[in-house]
């Protein structure tokens, strides 16, 4: 329990790579036009989806694990200040150094300062959402420090000067031939005879990075979990690049959002069952590393952790939305999302794509930032994400909540109300009384006129035109159910010629 005895502060929103630069529908329109992307994504999401389903249905207690995971995270949010202090105490006692960063800029400056202090100009990196969120690589580059991504997909994306499109498999939008071409073009010393066979490409990446691993003095990582009761950090990975970065260099700098805490060691047993199955659809990921501060004679002796707010405290202030912070970045929601499956990650603008991104980005930045207010609408509310989420984040409810935050934030600010505003106001009148609706229904035969002879309406004006771009509207019936019922139940006896009309 937390007692707050101050003035309520204005929310401090996040900065960095959290913004949609253009509205979702506009970005989606462009991405939908890319047939190769859609084919890659369709294949990928269905593959992971099926794998996940198989390993999740193996566990008799999957739902109980979800219940525990959800409650643990809810408890973390409720007790966040004390848990952060407990973690700090334990991590520091074991030789680790903690830094606090209010936002992206501050986090970047801290990391750059720590690298500079080692005298090095190169760092190796483990895949990390937090460092993408703050744009660390670009910042380090400006400071004359080169950051080498070591995860295969991150390497592909980095070599191609592209952006990740998925939080688990960042290069999912590229196929093997595209990847081979990137290696040939951008990887120094790549074998000109390189084929597009995935094992061959993986070996090329191994050769390319091995020298870096063996000589790197500084590594930068994110963290999947932080255990408050011991001060332990965890990184969950597959390739071994994580182990290389966490083990061989002298200095390790980890950047982690403040929401990643778990209260106790015991809680890890829940999350290490939930995460791999939800994420890659494996019973367990190949490698997980845990470290608690510094261990003499084993691994980096100069260990730092940057605790990042960057809008998380603002998200926490939203009572309806705060459970978005329960996210463990597994990507199950995007792999089952019919919208993400068709648009890919780039349409969301932010580091966080898919259903979780559609709620997390606007929560971290505020609904009015750039085009982020368009993100909560990027969903048909089908609910597949909620079912797949290992920590039971009710994404559909939060999407709807954020839409109302958006609508309310715009009330009274517009000179001219939008078509949607006008339509919703009119519909509120029509649908808030049986009498009103009955009156509106009297006008339906007009629809029959609009439908013309083939009984189909093919084009509507304004926002409703979105409907008729790919769907017909056949003619409405001559009589509403309400009218029929009234006649049936109030008139003495319906005459023979009052045939049911449809």
């Amino acid at each position, binding site marked *: 329990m937390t007692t707050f005895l101050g003035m309520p502060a204005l929310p401090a929103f996040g900065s960095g790579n959290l913004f949609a630069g253009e509205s979702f529908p506009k970005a989606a329109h462009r991405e939908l036009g890319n047939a190769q992307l859609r084919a890659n994504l369709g294949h990928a999401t269905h593959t992971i989806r099926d794998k996940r389903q198989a390993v999740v249905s193996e566990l008799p207690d999957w739902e109980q694990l979800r219940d525990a995971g959800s409650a643990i995270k809810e408890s973390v*949010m409720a007790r966040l200040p004390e848990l952060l202090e407990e973690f700090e105490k334990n991590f520091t006692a074991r030789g680790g150094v903690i830094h606090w960063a209010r936002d992206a800029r*501050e986090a970047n400056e801290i990391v750059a300062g720590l690298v500079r202090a080692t005298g090095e100009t190169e760092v190796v990196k483990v895949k990390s959402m937090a460092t993408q969120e703050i744009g660390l690589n670009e910042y380090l580059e400006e400071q004359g420090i080169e950051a080498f991504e070591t995860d295969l997909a991150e390497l592909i994306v980095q070599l191609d000067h592209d952006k990740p499109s998925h939080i688990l498999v960042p290069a999912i939008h590229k196929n093997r031939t595209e990847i081979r071409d990137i290696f040939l073009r951008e990887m120094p010393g790549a074998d000109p005879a390189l084929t597009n066979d995935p094992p061959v490409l993986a070996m090329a990446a191994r050769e390319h990075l091995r020298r870096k691993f063996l000589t790197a003095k500084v590594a930068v990582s994110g963290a999947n979990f932080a255990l408050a009761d011991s001060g332990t950090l965890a990184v969950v990975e597959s390739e071994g690049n994580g182990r290389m970065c966490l083990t061989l260099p002298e200095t390790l700098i980890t950047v982690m959002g403040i929401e990643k805490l778990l209260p106790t060691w015991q809680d890890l047993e829940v999350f290490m069952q939930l995460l791999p199955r939800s994420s890659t659809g494996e019973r367990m990921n190949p490698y997980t590393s845990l470290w608690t501060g510094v261990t003499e004679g084993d691994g980096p002796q100069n260990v730092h952790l940057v605790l990042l707010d960057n809008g998380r405290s603002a998200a926490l202030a939203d009572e309806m939305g705060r459970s978005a912070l329960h996210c463990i970045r597994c990507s199950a929601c995007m792999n089952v999302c019919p919208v993400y499956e068709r648009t890919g990650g780039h349409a969301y603008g932010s580091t966080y794509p898919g259903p979780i991104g559609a709620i997390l980005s606007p929560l971290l930045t505020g609904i009015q930032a750039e085009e982020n207010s368009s993100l909560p609408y990027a969903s048909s509310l089908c609910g597949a994400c909620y079912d797949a989420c290992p920590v039971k984040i009710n994404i559909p409810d939060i999407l709807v909540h954020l839409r109302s935050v958006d609508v309310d934030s715009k009330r009274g600010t517009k000179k001219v109300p939008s078509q949607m505003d006008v339509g919703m106001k009119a519909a509120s009148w029509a649908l808030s009384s049986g009498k009103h609706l009955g009156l509106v229904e009297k006008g339906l035969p007009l629809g029959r006129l609009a439908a013309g002879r083939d009984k189909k309406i093919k084009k509507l004006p304004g926002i409703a035109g979105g409907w008729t771009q790919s769907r017909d509207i056949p003619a409405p019936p001559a009589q509403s159910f309400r009218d029929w019922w009234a006649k049936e139940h109030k008139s003495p006896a319906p005459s023979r010629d009052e045939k049911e009309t449809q």
Partner: protein
Amino acid sequence: MSAREDILSRIRSALQDSPEAPQIPREYRAASGMDADGLVDLLVDRLVDYKAQVAVVPAAEVPATIASLLEGARSYVVPEGLDGGWLAAMDDAGTGGSRRRVDSPAEPLSVADLDGTDAVVTGSAVAVAETGTIILDGSANQGRRAISLVPDHHICVVKAADIAGILPEALGRIDGTRPITMISGPSATSDIELQRVEGVHGPRRLDVIIAR
């Protein structure tokens, strides 16, 4: 105000509605209830699924098994605290000793030395049958983390008594503040068209010897 104070104060302000920390329902399985044979069988099944090589042998045959697995290795590294008996067959073979490099806290091998070593032999702290996971905790018979990472071939001995059925049982047996590595098969990636490729940066070959 320091960033620390600022952030903690923002969080406290965000929690003005004083949300309750719920009781954690721990209705999930705490133990598998499997017998010793079942545990071995399940662990083997899971490791094979990850494309690891597995041999289940009586404890007395561990040395011979290690020797045969190391046949093609020009060099191999062991932690100083490795169960001495396990290398008996290497010593008997006479040539084994000269290929051996011992890593110890007093005389740690350099990264370059490790990179020039073909294989590594370690013990393990505990294993999880259900997920095919072997956990190393940096104890004397496993050594520091780097030695089981850099060589391309990892031979790992798991004692049957150290196999737990499910993860909660296994994590209950180890000290989480030690440097922990959980290993489930050889390193792998699915980053290219989701086709799984074994062996990227970590050891490309994982041999597990389960000693009954």
